[in-house]
């Protein structure tokens, strides 16, 4: 299967997965974006800009940290605050950020999105 087509399928599968988990207990919302577009579903719309900025900065920091420590390709970055955490995963040319309450098991979320 051509790379472009495979990537498209992955993103579509991810989109379905996100739709499936968005109403789960503790999930606050998600941002799925690529170079041209973004799908955003965040429960509190007033947080969208802050969350988008955080997503971008966190993934960039994660990539920089990976470079410094020689971690290779970044599979995921998790940033936890006092109340909320965000799971960031690069998928092909897209990047997904899932926001959730801190007590949610992010590894379970990863599995449910078939990303692990």
């Amino acid at each position, binding site marked *: 299967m051509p790379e472009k087509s495979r990537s498209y399928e992955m993103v579509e599968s991810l989109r379905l997965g996100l739709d499936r988990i968005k109403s789960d207990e503790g999930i606050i919302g998600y941002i799925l974006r690529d170079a041209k577009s973004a799908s955003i579903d965040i429960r509190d719309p007033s*947080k969208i800009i*802050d*969350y988008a*900025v*955080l997503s971008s*900065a*966190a993934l960039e*920091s*994660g990539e*920089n*940290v*990976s470079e*410094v*420590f*020689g*971690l*290779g*390709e*970044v*599979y*995921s*970055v*998790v*940033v*936890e*605050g*006092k*109340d*909320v*955490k*965000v799971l960031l995963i690069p998928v092909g040319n897209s990047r997904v950020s899932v*926001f959730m309450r801190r007590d949610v098991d992010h590894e379970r979320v990863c599995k449910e999105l078939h990303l692990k």
Partner: protein
Amino acid sequence: MDKDTYAVALRNTLTEVRNICPDITCSFIFTKEGIVIAGDEQSVDVPVEKTVGFFQGLMDKATTIGGLNTMIVNGSKGKVHISSVNDMYLVIAASKNADMSHIRSIANVIIPTVLKLLKTVVPTPPKMAPSQQLIVESISGFFVGDAVQVDEEVLRRWSKDFKGKSVGEVEVEAFGGKVIRCKVKVISDSQSKGKGLIRVPEKVARELEVKQGELIRIKPVEP
């Protein structure tokens, strides 16, 4: 505890943690202000300041999720766990197969406990018991007892050295090397007061092998 001792203790702790958990490739601790406090022996090979810089850049943006408590970067060749510990951040880099529950235990239990201990453990300087030399005045009699007698002034000074606690025992050392521990009280005979004397019961003097007029060294026992 001074900063150097604190840093050495932390560095040793991180090195020991690495020894018992070989999946850890490097670890270090820095403050929110970006000052690296301590790192294990491997951290010298890593540009820690760069990591601190990346992390600090993220701090402002993380206010929207209630601050920055933890960051985990999971890569194809390894992972990095950065977590808030008291007022500092602990960075642990580990191999890709490292057990995250171990790393979390280190970050959330072991290091915070060590930091807490280091904060509370303040080395107590050994008390320098003020010894002094006095001239022996031998005493005898039925009611003399076995306590040596010194000036009230000496006892008062010792009491002050020990935060008001009364000194009830002393170590008496003869220049011949004999040392005994015995009770101490104030000189009862007004004729002997204020002359730098120590009144020693005959029995004690015999044990110390000292005679009237000789010098002996006396040191209070901490109450």
